[in-house]
């Protein structure tokens, strides 16, 4: 497959290297001349020394025939515009943007960029899964809304275990969409009690994620 990578920082460089090693075709756009040279010395002639946020350089890099464009610069606005240009101007079937501020995942989705990677979010998720109170995992933002999907596990000792959903004090706009209990889906309403071992799926406005966590885990 053919991938165009925008941004030759550490992420872009190692991504290009990994894709080349798995026998994919790669073109990396990097606007800094010296950085572009360094990468070219290491990876060969797979670098175009030009800014990726200008349509003509995307064309020069062959975005029209790219299977995906991946924008991994350190600037969220640049990553957004690069992906939109690739989508609208070059009809690239798949665009992926790195977001540095996790809030921008929602922003990018609202602006038509569905695939985003937030390193902050990924690391936070890993840390949270390791925590003993654990099992609180924001899964994904929902396209076209300010909502997200959260999965939570009711472990022994969790303050919400044994309580009915109505008594949890979930923030406005947040709702428990379903409970997975012993491998089966249990319908959830206000009177349903959460039991140890339940896995629950919560729909929540992104901005009250912390309140949902508080309602469930104290």
């Amino acid at each position, binding site marked *: 497959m053919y991938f165009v990578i925008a941004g030759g920082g550490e992420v872009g460089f190692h991504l290009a290297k990994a894709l080349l090693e798995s026998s994919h075709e790669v073109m990396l756009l990097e606007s800094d001349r010296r950085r572009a040279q360094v990468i070219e010395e290491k990876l060969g002639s797979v670098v175009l020394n030009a800014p990726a*946020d*200008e*349509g*003509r350089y995307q064309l020069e890099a062959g975005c029209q025939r790219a299977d995906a464009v991946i924008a991994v610069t350190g*600037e*969220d*606005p*640049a990553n*957004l*515009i690069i992906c*939109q*240009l690739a989508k*609208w*101007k070059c009809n690239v079937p798949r665009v992926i943007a790195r977001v540095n*501020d996790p*809030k*921008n995942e*929602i*922003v990018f989705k*609202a*602006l038509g960029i569905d695939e985003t990677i937030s390193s902050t979010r990924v690391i936070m998720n890993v840390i949270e899964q390791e925590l003993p109170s654990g099992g609180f995992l924001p899964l994904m933002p929902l396209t076209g809304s300010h909502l997200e999907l959260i999965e939570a596990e009711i472990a022994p000792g969790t303050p919400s275990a044994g309580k009915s959903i109505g008594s949890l004090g979930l923030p406005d706009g947040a709702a428990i969409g379903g409970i997975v209990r012993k491998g089966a889906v249990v319908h959830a309403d206000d009177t349903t009690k959460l039991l140890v071992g339940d896995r629950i799926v919560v729909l929540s406005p992104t901005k009250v994620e912390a309140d949902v966590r508080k309602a469930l885990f104290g």
Partner: protein
Amino acid sequence: MNIVIVGCGRVGAFLAGQLDKAGHAVTIVDLERGSFVHLPQDFHGTTLLGNGTDLDVLRTAGIDKADAVFTLTQGDNRNLMAAQIARQIFGVKRVIAKVNDPIRAALYRSHEISTVSRTTILGTLLEAMLMGDAEVGKVLIEKSKAAEAAMAGELG
């Protein structure tokens, strides 16, 4: 009108001053405190220190109640991102972004963002002046001369 301006460079500060004088409620956002020196001394509007592409900063600026938003930082991408947040997420009716790259200016115009490119506007005007085509910029030049005279008068 409630007006939010992102970017307090020369253009942002000038526009903020004009709209403030005309009696509008102006909030102007910039990353650097030092930028606000560009504003006229008698500016009555609100200044907000923060990143104009940040959702929370824009909320604080009152973008959800804005009648118009201008994005006028030095970065085309920042201007286009802030403008799209205003238009698509907060549903602001009038959104104008300064986009110096003519290609990007044209592309986003077809995606509901009004864009103004200094490159093509100033270039077209200069060419017309050289060719003696007075029609092209007559009103524009008269208005900007008047604004310049007013600014110089305040200093003098």
